[in-house]
């Protein structure tokens, strides 16, 4: 349990380690694609961590990276094919960011720093913690960006072929200031992420170094 909480708060991949930012900024325009992306990364992270920790003794140190990348890309390809077959609209929305999970530093980073050094139990716990941390942050960013930037909240739209219902909430306020549509653009993604990291550090209240 400690390991999982550590992944969410102590070593949160986006807010603390600042890894995997590309996908975090790009897919968070709607809430739906954010949590789906999070789940995808969670799954791939878990499977690749399991595999890596199983074969850790067979892999020589100097071919570590190619072997791990190969493992990760196998799982990504499987996931991609499944998504393409069953949830085509979502596959199109996620686009290039799905295959790019292969080079997502979170996955490779965890494989190298944790899974290749510890047993399966620890690896799975670590993968779940980090994956959940990633998913939560993506959801928070997307919630903020979509609600304030677009005035909607998409909970189920592209996956409706699987679940059967569409849930899109609409928020309407009678002021000119809403929605702040810059938040749905890349600049808004950076702003949101920046403020989120600041808020996170403020709440965590880490030791500040005194300076003038």
């Amino acid at each position: 349990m400690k390991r999982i909480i550590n992944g969410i708060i102590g070593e949160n991949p986006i807010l603390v380690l600042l890894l995997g930012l590309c996908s975090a900024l790009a897919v968070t325009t709607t809430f739906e694609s954010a949590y789906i992306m999070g789940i995808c990364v969670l799954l791939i992270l878990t499977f690749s961590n399991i595999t890596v920790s199983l074969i850790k003794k067979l892999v020589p140190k100097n071919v570590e990276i190619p072997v791990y990348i190969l493992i990760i890309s196998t799982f990504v390809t499987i996931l991609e094919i499944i998504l393409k077959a069953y949830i085509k609209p979502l596959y199109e929305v996620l686009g290039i960011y799905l295959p790019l999970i292969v080079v997502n530093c979170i996955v490779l980073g965890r494989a190298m720093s944790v899974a290749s050094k510890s047993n399966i139990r620890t690896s799975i716990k670590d993968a779940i913690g980090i994956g959940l941390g990633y998913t939560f942050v993506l959801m928070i960013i997307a919630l903020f960006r979509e609600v304030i930037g677009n005035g909607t909240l998409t909970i189920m739209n592209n996956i409706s072929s699987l679940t059967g219902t569409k849930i899109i909430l609409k928020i309407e306020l009678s002021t000119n200031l809403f929605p702040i549509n810059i938040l749905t653009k890349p600049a808004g993604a950076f702003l949101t992420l920046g403020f989120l990291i600041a808020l996170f550090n403020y709440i965590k209240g880490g030791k500040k170094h005194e300076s003038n």
Partner: protein
Amino acid sequence: MKFNVLKGPFFKSKNSTHRIMLNLFIALLPIILFSFYKNGIVVYQNNKTDIFGMFYPLLFTLTGIVSSFLTETLYTYIFLKKRGTELKKSILNSFSIFPGLFVSLFLPLNTPIEILIFACVVAIIIGKMLYGGFGHNVFNPALIGVLFALTCYGSIINQNGGYINKYELDTIGSATPLTNYKLVEGIGTYDTVVKPFGSLGDFFIGNIPGGPGEVCSFLIILAFIYLVFTKVIKWKIPVIYVGTVFIMTTIIGSINGVGLWYPTFSILSGGLLFGAVFMATDPVTSPTTSVGQIIYALFLGILTVTFRYLTSAPEGVLTSILTMNMFVMILDRIGSSSKPSIKKIALPLLIGLTIMTTMSIHIGNKFKHPNGTDPNFKLIKKTKDYYMVSQKGNGGPIKAKIYIKDNQITKIEILENNETENYFKLVKEAKYTKTLIKNQDNLDNIDTISGATISSTALKKMIIHVKEDMSK
């Protein structure tokens, strides 16, 4: 051992920062009063507004000043936790009224007041305080606020009337010189570019629609002379910036065979002079070395011309100043070596001049076209029953299929468009294509849709060209 790091700009003169800011305010005062005269008194005299509307331009500026001052004070009080004399000292030294003042001079007067306030808040917090306050900001705070308001709420501001005050709406129409310029064919002629707004004299004294601070070129030049005289700004940046734009538009104009009125128009229209004198010279966000200033200003000019001609935005001053703000540190490094070697300076200058000439020749040739045809219009397919045509709109070509019967247009089907959704929605809501079909024999009298001028004009022109082709 403790090092005390101070941020620039460092001036070696008797001018204290307070003195500089006071002079800046004195230079801006006539411009504020002129905006009051043009958008308040003249409108009131023509019975287009009430007494509140008359004082509205002053209130608008005041709102900007007050909201940016309050924002900074509150930020310092809440987040930096300064109290009492410390708070007073930090407020006195940070000149928080200026970002708000500039935002209110840049934004159109028809901007809803809450958007103005929000733009000032963004300017102060994101543009200034998050970087560490006065003297630490990388980008010009006022421009951050303006750009934020224009990108986020551009369509709302346009629907609200944009840059046009109520008097001009009757006398001139609904376009500023630069938005009008976007619609002319090629680089335009004196009759289509300058004539709708009077003469170049009107451009000089500010009798044209535009942002409250930027129209009166005469007062801006006076302010420039005053500021140079009181050593608030260096003359290099504004002169080289405007000079670069002048030379580039002269080349563009001469390729297309128009006279010297053309570069003059380019300089006097839009926010170029205002931006060059007040924004590009901001002591915090512009280079302090003279070599840096020369290269900075040269690239500002190149970027402005490029943005104006090759993008869909009518104005490029804001974006080019913000872009060049990023390079200030590098430029100062080039300029600040103890013995600036010719090699170091010559290379960037040479690159700049090469880009300048090739870019202007490229733009000049791009806009060159045989007389009588519209380069934005393309006939893709023509059959007995329909025309497939495309016309360049705001975001790219608008492709449409136009059905005809007995020399009359019966239906317009828009196949593809790349317009900004909010604007194009207005065109659709107004059922503009139906209006066009109904009045197809009398197209000149149809008004464009305010708020979506470029898109609706493109559609209108498309139909005009089809009609011309049909009558051949």
